[in-house]
């Protein structure tokens, strides 16, 4: 995987006191992008794309309040990727802690209903919406996923996702206790113990994933590469 065609893409990593910033930054550098930490609203203007990372609690939403207005503005102008907590922050609130998210989508983040919480480890993804059904006949994990009894999650046509191009048959590293239950722009879902949650969202170039793409091996790097390439489109 070379990063030649992604040279000089400046990516702001929003620093709001949630961990994981180093890992995201190293993965983006590895792919040839130029990540930098955005600590003040003015930093977002300089970026070609924005990443909102996150290992931590929804209570970190408070730390984001100073940048919220500029972030919402810049998110409309350039590609955006929310990772893990950064995806949950697109919503209004969470069962996990007080705090107001970015409110791009309505609803509240709920606690996972599986036997072992947190949900830690590698899990597969399945497309949401009509494209997902057609998909289910092939793919290395398709039969196992079907056996798990995926819940129905309506959403956009998952297979059209630019972010997830080329990685539908891959697994990704998850580490979380809370998750998005539904979203009109869901592209992928993931199940544990037969309970499904939204694992990816995409609307135009605004994207979010529940898994840690920066820790998901080659497949995760491909997702980040797909994201970086949105800058050029």
């Amino acid at each position: 995987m070379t990063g030649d065609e992604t040279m000089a893409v400046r990516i702001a990593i929003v620093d709001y006191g949630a961990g994981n910033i180093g890992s995201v930054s190293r993965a983006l550098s590895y792919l040839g992008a130029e990540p930098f930490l955005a600590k003040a609203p003015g930093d977002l203007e300089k970026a070609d794309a924005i990443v909102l990372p996150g290992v931590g609690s929804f209570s970190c939403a408070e730390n984001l309040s100073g940048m919220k207005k500029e972030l919402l503005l810049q998110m409309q102008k350039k590609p955006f990727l929310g990772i893990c907590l950064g995806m949950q922050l697109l919503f209004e609130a969470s069962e996990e802690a007080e705090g107001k998210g970015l409110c791009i989508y309505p609803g509240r983040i709920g606690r996972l209903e599986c036997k072992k919480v947190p949900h830690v480890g590698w899990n597969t993804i399945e497309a949401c919406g009509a494209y997902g059904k057609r998909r289910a006949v092939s793919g290395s994990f398709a039969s196992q996923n079907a056996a798990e009894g995926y819940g129905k999650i309506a959403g956009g046509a998952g297979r059209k996702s630019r972010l997830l191009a080329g990685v539908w048959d891959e697994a990704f590293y998850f580490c979380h206790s809370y998750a998005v239950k539904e979203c009109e722009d869901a592209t992928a879902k993931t199940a544990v113990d037969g309970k499904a949650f939204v694992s990816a969202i995409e609307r135009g170039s605004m994207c979010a994933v529940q898994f840690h793409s920066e820790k998901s091996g080659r497949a995760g790097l491909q997702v980040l590469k797909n994201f970086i390439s949105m800058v050029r489109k």
Partner: protein
Amino acid sequence: MLLKRIIPCLDVKNGRVVKGKSFVSLADAGDPVALGRRYYEEGADELVFLDITATNEKRKTMVALASAVAEQVFVPFTVGGGIASFRDAAAVLDAGADKIALNTAAVENPALIGKIAAVYGSQAVMVAIDAKRNGQGRWDVWINAGTTNTGKDAVAWTREAQAAGAGEILLTSIDSDGSNAGYDLELTKEVAEAVSIPVIASGGAGGASDIADAFLKGKADAALLAGILHYGKTTIPKLKRELAKKEIPVRMA
């Protein structure tokens, strides 16, 4: 669906891999970073580095290792082996490790587990337990690299560790370790069923059927491998293909 994890473990001393004869093709087969990267590229789902250096320079070597691995390996990795304080843990986690493993220090000071978890999250704190059969059908917890019997019951200690804030248990059977005769399945199952956090089985893997047993009979979430990989008995892709044939869900990289 949640997949079962295969986790190579590298013992590191003074910056060198202690066991590591399999990759003679590597320019430097004793370099933990090169070996870690090789395992990552072959499809390791995670990596564990146990630094067994016993010098005052130890923290420095662990931090250097964590930051070098983080630059090249894009799956989660753990650093352990003598982390004794919050400061040790913070230094390694800040350098880029995803998790730290606590063993002796957790037994001597269980509050340390919660102290690290409060800042870095439970997912960052793995408690490593070395257990040995005590002749009465139970297992005792041994510390100081398996040289001191604490007399603590291993299953009870696992529950305690979870309550203290551990996010994962690395369970090694001292009886099986190095035997290549299979994991201690009874121990693994008792521990895995006693807690709701993931349990990594360790000690005794001789091949794919042992690993399959750890998952199916031992109820483990992940399997730690050392000797069978380091001495070239098998490879990660080969093991995963064999596990997939046994209908164990694994990630093919």
